[in-house]
């Protein structure tokens, strides 16, 4: 009997132990997670920007129709140009293939992009009928469309930057064919463009300029703390200090985020040593767009400006009403990557909140600008350095307040940098 009691007792103890162990096994959590794997746990910055995709961030800088007798047509405003491009993006392209031979060289319509884009982006930008998997590895800067009246179809050609490769696809759809026809043949909703051939590239400008307005905008500062939360690995150990100009800077002794230019720009550096092969252009664009979307960074209208594979930099230009906004370093987003890690990041720290009564402008016509340029070409500039000419906004701050003004101006890309075609002081002298 004594033995039986001991056995019962032993059994109960064993059952108890097994329960305890099972419970322990289920609930035991390693206490390690706070120090390891803490990466990105705190990334919760949100600047409240809109969503952007590769499809919407890349836009052609110009769309041009070449008609008979060397005449050229384009859209009267960049807004209409964008709407047409957005329409074109929905047209189904089929029969995608690559050609080695260069067949013809006159095009009915051409679209130019701000930088060389990898062919792999074709899937993202346009509606290919079947997702092409073996896209060639060259890049294009120009896409042309040809109108085949007999077959009632449009032929799209992607032209490589070096001009050695082409890829074509066809658009075989009655409504898009008719829309294209109405533009090319009927010139519907188009105006004539003038050709400037002395520059580094063939440049076309609208002959008349209408309805460009100057704006005064009120702005709001973006919340820097949101950027700190998102860009630092552990925002709670980030320390803030003020420089003599009262501009804050944040650092955790490795990374540094500085607010500069009167609080209007932030500059972030993350000096990680990075070796490894530079990323592909498309990867770079993806890293970059992800990192900006991550903290809701598309706070104004931004468009892709360039992807530089060698220095692993991606840049975006601010736009307003479909016109680029130019300024020295205040209106562009620029990022540098190394092995997929964000190393440098510079961006404006303001968001446009509302616009105050637009004022009409009186911009020169394309012809007048070309005449003016030719005149300057004989004096102080050499025309072969002119890479592009377009209308853009000049950004200026009104005192120190939260207002800024946008003044429409003709800009030229001279040796890679955008500057007004007409120099400030000259204008002033003329008006006196």
């Amino acid at each position, binding site marked *: 009997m004594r033995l039986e009691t001991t056995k019962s007792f032993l059994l109960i103890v064993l059952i108890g*132990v097994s329960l305890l*162990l099972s419970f322990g096994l289920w609930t035991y959590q390693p206490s390690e997670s706070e120090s390891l794997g803490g990466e990105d746990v705190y990334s919760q910055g949100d600047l409240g920007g809109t969503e952007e995709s590769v499809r919407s961030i890349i836009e052609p800088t110009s769309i041009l129709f070449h008609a008979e007798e060397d005449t050229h047509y384009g859209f009267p405003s960049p807004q209409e140009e964008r709407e047409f491009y957005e329409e074109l993006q929905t047209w189904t392209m089929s029969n995608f293939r690559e050609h080695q031979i260069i067949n013809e060289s006159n095009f009915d319509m051409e679209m130019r992009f701000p930088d060389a884009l990898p062919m792999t982006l074709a899937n993202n930008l346009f509606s290919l009928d079947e997702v092409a998997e073996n896209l060639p590895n060259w890049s294009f800067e120009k896409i042309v469309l040809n109108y085949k009246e007999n077959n009632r179809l449009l032929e799209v050609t992607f032209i490589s930057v070096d001009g050695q490769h082409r890829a074509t696809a066809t658009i075989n759809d009655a409504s898009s064919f008719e829309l294209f026809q109405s533009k090319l043949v009927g010139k519907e909703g188009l105006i004539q463009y003038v050709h400037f051939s002395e520059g580094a590239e063939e440049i076309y400008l609208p002959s008349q300029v209408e309805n460009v307005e100057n704006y005064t905008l009120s702005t709001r500062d973006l919340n820097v703390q949101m950027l700190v939360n998102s860009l630092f690995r*552990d925002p709670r150990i980030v320390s803030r200090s*003020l420089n003599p100009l009262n501009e804050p800077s944040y650092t955790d002794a490795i990374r540094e985020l500085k607010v500069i230019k009167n609080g209007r720009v932030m500059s972030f550096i993350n000096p990680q*040593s990075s070796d490894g092969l530079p990323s592909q252009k498309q990867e770079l664009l993806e890293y970059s767009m992800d990192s900006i979307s991550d903290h809701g960074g598309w706070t104004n209208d931004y468009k892709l400006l360039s992807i530089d594979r060698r220095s692993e930099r991606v840049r975006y230009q601010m736009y307003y009403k479909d016109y680029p906004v130019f300024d020295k370093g205040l209106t562009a987003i620029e990022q540098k990557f190394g092995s997929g890690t964000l190393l440098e990041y510079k961006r404006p720290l303001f968001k446009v909140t509302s616009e105050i009564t637009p004022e009409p402008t009186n911009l020169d016509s394309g012809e007048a600008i070309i005449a003016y340029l030719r005149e300057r070409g004989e004096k102080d500039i050499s025309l072969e350095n002119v890479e592009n000419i377009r209308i853009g906004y000049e950004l200026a701050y009104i005192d120190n307040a939260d207002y800024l003004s946008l003044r429409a101006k003709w800009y030229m890309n001279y040796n890679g940098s955008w500057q007004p075609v007409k120099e400030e002081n000259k204008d002033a002298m003329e008006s006196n």
Partner: protein
Amino acid sequence: MQWSQIKTLFILCFLILDIYLLVQFIDKQDRADQYSGDENLTLQEELKREGITLGDIKVGVEKESPITVSPIEFTEEQKETIDELDNQETVINTDNLIISHFDDPIPISEEADGAEISQAINDYVYRAENYKFWEWDKELNVILFFQEKEGDPIYYNQYGLLLVFLNEDNEIEYYTQSILGDTDASHEDNLRTLIKPMQAIGTLYEDNSLFFEDHVDDVEFGYHTWIPPTGGKQVFAPTYKVSVNEERDYFINAIEGQLFTDPEENFTRDMIMENFMDVQVIPNDLDWKDDMINKLRKLTQAETNRSELP
């Protein structure tokens, strides 16, 4: 009788179950706790294969946080103390850098080690006990000391540096001293678990910074910043210094584990250059000013000569 047999059977079953669960539990605990330990094991094997040996790599610091340090502002009292230091004439410039000239140069023996050198200057330098001997650059005949904060050295920082200049007879003639101010108290609230020193060595190994038959002498704890100083507040990250073969030092962030590019290169020469600039603007009535400028110029020129060599 039957019940008794069933009980025996049950006891046996539960005994086996318990042993199994216990093994599982210990295993899980081991894996979680020794996660890095397991890694270390394979790392250790790899190091062994490469003939890399380890000295004493314990540091004895487990949790730390970055520290924020303000620039120093001397009080009148402190200025007086500095002014009254023995056997020397001192100037404090606008950046609160102390520039000093010894009336009687202090001899240092050729073979003196860090402790002896520290001892030699102890009575003459303001807060000397807060400065840790770093190295004696025999080529330039300059000795470097790093300031300590929270008991640990601040590696390679222009604003926490004691630079001692020796003459041909190994006597200390001049020194310059910059002092970091107070540490913000808040850092105690944000302690983070540091990586194990072994992980730091792993980083070095993966970075191909450790070579065949290297010897890792030790791992030391200190602070360092990778942000160039601007003269305002500075933030220093907990940092491991890993010394290899008594000739190479590597600095690894002790929270995140990154290895950073070598801060040592040209540091001493850059600092001499800075001092050279600073000395130009001290008052002219100091009779040793010209001599010091000349000596510093010689040192900065030694730099150009050297860098011009192929």
